[in-house]
């Protein structure tokens, strides 16, 4: 979230789309209710189903799954043509005046540089025009046709309300009502928030959907403002923290990235990630990348990371491609992987096309499970009849199952969606011999290190030199690890302004990331978490819930990254002169008397940069402003475009009827065999989508007695019209099949799913909750991801769980 949960109460308009907060995040959704009750906020819900969130909405619009870019593109078109944009905001805080290269083009569904054979773009034309002074050329008059503003206007001019209705199935009248309500937040005294979840992420165009939403919020001037922002409601309790800590194939902690095999020169690696400002006077905060990186390597490798060995740069593995889970299971399926460890993760249930995942796991030599619960993945080799029809004798994988503690049995911090690091304490011992994950990782590592010390082996250096100075090496404490990611001084740190002064003595904890250095004198395991555990103590354990400004920014509760800021980009809550856009919603402002930025939140800005200096509020970008034009940072284009899901119920992209190659995301990666496993509307005519229920959490609570009692049995939801067509009664058992397999479940026939008219066809949706499996105390059921397609978003490779095709028949 750019903002956070209690901040939702500050909104005037709330858009829930690509999520169902009332069902999936009920206690966070209370702040929507609060905004409605106390702030007269209006709630808009756009969803294929009339959800629990929709039931609370002032306005509900149905939409066909996978068409959100068309809908939001229509909103952008509406805002621009009706002059409902916050012009003062976008002129100063976005790239609208920047000039784009003449060669950049968009023709027939493809941006310039597309290679049809490779399904990839050469992105060299997706860039600004650079002036001789080394800065981007701009035209503040907006007359130049190559302005981002003019290109954007032209791009979205095609997304008329009629086009929206035709693609999304949303009646034009309803769409216009939504657009009008959203547009009402373009004035400085009104703010809208957008709440989304995996209903946006899990599409082959997921990242671009979210970008389109960000563009809407920029046009309305709602980023950086209390009650505004683009807010990802993450699906798990510490998925935010694990992402922050960089546990992804291509990342390092704090959104740093691993080097590729073409950037093995250390200086080139750093320089590429530390861009110089592209406009005069801009901060471009990533220029400090070297400080964050060297401090990380000092935290990991201590004295073995030296200037001479480029801070142990060779210890880091170099990427030849991304090893996301789809890529890894593809390799596993090809028999190219031997071992796999699943820590608190249930891939058999969580990944698409269960048949492929199961076949892949069966080819492993060994599989290690670390979990508090008996997951399906840990028993993928066991026969559970129709639910898991395999022959154990044929599966030669050695499987280890290691019991771990759960939340109640350990100390530590987890990060909520609002970026709050909240500490929790152990309340009891774990059952049997279960151990915390920290201890198991230590146990495995120490055993490996012992073997490498004794017998040698492939490149033992990083293992032998890994910093492991924990009091009890087999049981590193959460306190020690938290202090390590906060960071400390390696030697006495002298004040750069007055070298006679010592800022921090060697070994002392740092106050924050501003103290990090690139000369090896600081060590810090995750720069964005710096400040979480300082010499003043554990900031994550703070419990002062005082809210002196009555705006929900409880600065004394826990610790929010970065630097305890509660709302990101909050400099944009003030006008270019440093005065709040809205006097009723004061966040940060320029205080001329003290020559400082002050306010009710920690300013997300250079604290002493006067407004006259013209520094932009988006300090992480080299432009200093937010981008409507994504340059080469997205794989399928600098502007979002509607592409159909890979399994489309209409078989054509109405935006590009004459170019079948632009039907679905042209830059999405599809493996051989998976393309063939896609189904067509002829055989599988219904648009399916998967989701959660409020009574269950993912695949965990089927192990929990009380949840199993209130929601015991697997079901699917179909509308009354489809049920009538198929002769299905509520309570009948039905078989739902895709081109990859089938599930059987009880049919719930509902008024909450209505057929939509799309491009001259009637499209029915089938709703499939995801919570069942063959392990648990609830009634056993089928794994929903038996049905889903093995293709991911063009940038993140997050699977397209939310849009695929099925058939439904009586079982």
């Amino acid at each position, binding site marked *: 979230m750019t903002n956070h949960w209690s901040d939702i109460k500050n909104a005037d308009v709330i858009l829930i789309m690509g999520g169902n907060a009332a069902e999936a995040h009920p206690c966070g959704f209370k702040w929507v209710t609060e905004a409605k009750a106390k702030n007269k906020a209006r709630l808009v819900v756009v969803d294929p189903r009339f959800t629990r969130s929709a039931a609370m909405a002032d306005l509900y619009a149905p939409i066909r799954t996978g068409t959100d870019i068309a809908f939001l593109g229509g909103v952008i078109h509406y805002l621009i043509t009706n002059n409902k944009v916050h012009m003062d905001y976008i002129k100063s805080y976005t790239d609208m005046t920047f000039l784009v290269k003449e060669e950049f083009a968009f023709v027939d569904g493809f941006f310039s540089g597309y290679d049809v054979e490779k399904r990839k773009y050469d992105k060299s034309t997706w860039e600004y025009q650079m002036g001789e002074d080394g800065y981007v050329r701009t035209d503040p008059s907006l007359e130049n046709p190559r302005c981002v503003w003019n290109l954007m206007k032209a791009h979205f001019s095609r997304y008329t309300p009629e086009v929206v209705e035709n693609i999304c199935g949303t009646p034009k009248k309803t769409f216009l009502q939504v657009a009008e309500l959203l547009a009402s937040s373009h004035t400085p005294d009104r703010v809208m928030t957008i709440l989304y979840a995996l209903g946006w992420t899990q599409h082959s165009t997921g990242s671009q959907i979210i970008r389109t939403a960000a563009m809407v919020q920029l046009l309305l001037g709602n980023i950086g403002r209390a009650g505004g922002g683009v807010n990802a409601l993450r699906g798990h309790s510490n998925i935010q923290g694990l992402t922050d800590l960089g546990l992804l194939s291509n990342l390092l902690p704090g959104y740093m990235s691993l080097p590729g095999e073409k950037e093995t020169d250390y200086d080139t690696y750093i320089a590429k990630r530390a861009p110089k400002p592209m406009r005069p006077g801009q901060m471009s905060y990533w220029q400090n990348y070297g400080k964050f990186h060297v401090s990380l390597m000092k935290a990991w490798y201590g004295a073995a990371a030296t200037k001479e060995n480029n801070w142990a740069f060779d210890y880091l593995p170099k990427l030849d491609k991304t090893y996301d889970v789809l890529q890894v299971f593809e390799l596993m399926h090809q028999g190219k992987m031997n071992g796999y460890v699943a820590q608190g993760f249930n891939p058999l249930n969580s990944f698409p096309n269960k048949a492929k995942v199961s076949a892949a796991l069966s080819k492993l030599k060994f599989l290690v499970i670390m979990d508090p619960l008996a997951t399906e993945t840990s028993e993928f080799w066991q026969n559970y009849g129709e639910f898991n029809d395999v022959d154990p004798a044929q599966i030669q994988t050695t499987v280890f199952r290691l019991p771990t503690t759960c939340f109640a049995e350990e100390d530590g911090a987890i990060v909520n969606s609002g970026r709050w690091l909240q500490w929790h304490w152990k309340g009891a011992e774990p059952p049997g011999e279960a151990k915390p994950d920290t201890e198991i990782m*230590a146990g495995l590592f120490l*055993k490996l290190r012992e073997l490498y010390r004794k017998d040698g082996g492939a490149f033992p250096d990083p293992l032998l030199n890994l910093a492991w100075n924990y009091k009890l090496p087999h049981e590193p404490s959460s306190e020690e690890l938290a202090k390590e990611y906060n960071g400390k001084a390696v030697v006495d740190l002298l004040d750069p302004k007055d070298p006679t002064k010592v800022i921090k003595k060697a070994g002392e904890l740092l106050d924050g990331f501003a103290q990090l250095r690139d000369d090896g004198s600081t060590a810090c395991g995750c720069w964005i978490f710096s400040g979480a555990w300082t010499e003043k103590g554990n900031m994550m354990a703070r419990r002062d819930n005082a809210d002196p400004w009555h705006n929900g920014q409880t600065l004394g509760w826990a610790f929010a990254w970065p630097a305890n800021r509660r709302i990101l980009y909050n400099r944009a809550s003030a006008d270019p002169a440093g005065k709040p856009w809205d006097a009723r919603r004061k966040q940060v402002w320029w205080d001329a008397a003290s020559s400082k930025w002050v306010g009710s939140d920690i300013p997300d800005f250079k604290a002493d940069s006067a407004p006259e200096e013209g520094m932009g509020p988006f300090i992480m970008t080299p432009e200093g402003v937010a981008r409507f034009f994504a340059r080469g940072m997205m794989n399928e284009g600098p502007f979002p475009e509607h592409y159909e899901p890979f399994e489309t119920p209409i078989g054509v992209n109405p935006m590009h009827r004459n170019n079948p190659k632009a039907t679905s995301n042209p830059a999405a990666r599809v493996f051989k065999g998976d393309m063939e496993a896609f189904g067509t509307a002829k055989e599988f005519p219904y648009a399916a989508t998967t989701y959660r229920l409020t009574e269950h959490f993912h695949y965990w609570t089927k192990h929990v007695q009380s949840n199993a009692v209130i929601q015991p049995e697997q079901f699917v939801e179909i509308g009354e019209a489809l049920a009538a067509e198929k002769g299905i009664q509520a309570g009948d058992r039905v078989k739902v099949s895709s081109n990859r397999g089938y599930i059987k479940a009880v049919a719930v026939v509902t008024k909450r799913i209505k057929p939509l008219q799309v491009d001259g066809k009637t499209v029915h949706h089938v709703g499939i909750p995801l919570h069942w499996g063959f392990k648990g105390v609830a009634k056993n059921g089928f794994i929903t991801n038996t049905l889903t397609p093995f293709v991911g978003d063009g940038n993140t490779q997050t699977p397209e769980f939310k849009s695929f095709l099925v058939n439904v028949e009586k079982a």
Partner: protein
Amino acid sequence: MQLSRRQFFKVAAGGLTGSSLAAMGFSPTAALAEVRTFKLARTTETRNTCPYCSVGCGIILYSLGDRAKNAHAEIIHIEGDPDHPVNRGSLCPKGAGLLDFVHSKNRLKYPEIREPGSKEWKRISWDEAYSRIAKLMKEDRDANFIARNADGVTVNRWLTTGFLAASASSNEAGYITHKVVRTLGMLAFDNQARV
């Protein structure tokens, strides 16, 4: 603790709490019965965070046992933390059922192994588990570690074993996991955020 009627009045006369109890119409027997049966009064309270969705609701664990070294703590109740600025004491149907997660009969208790082709689990010791897993990992790493790519460039990667990290484990677990996994040279490494 048993108080006689006379003792109760002695206590009641001694303080405001006692007298207001009486003023509200509590009869001694009813009040005493309440003290005896109110189990939470005997528990230890521990602040924690709900492990399910990302709202991060504050919860309070109530456990029997006073954290003395030989007293086995047993969590008997979990409820919302009223001081928490987001959930203000409330919980959803998932959070409200957390006690049954902690005590689920499907909690794993011991390290186990399923040998190739077998239909069953066999209990093993932690030491045996670490030893066998480390041996398998080392064999695979030593056999398939790529120090240099085809162009002779140092790449130091190990691609034939992968790791999936959790979605609810703590920052500290995530941090140490990352530290170890990268040190081994693994690239096939993701967490739940990928899906």
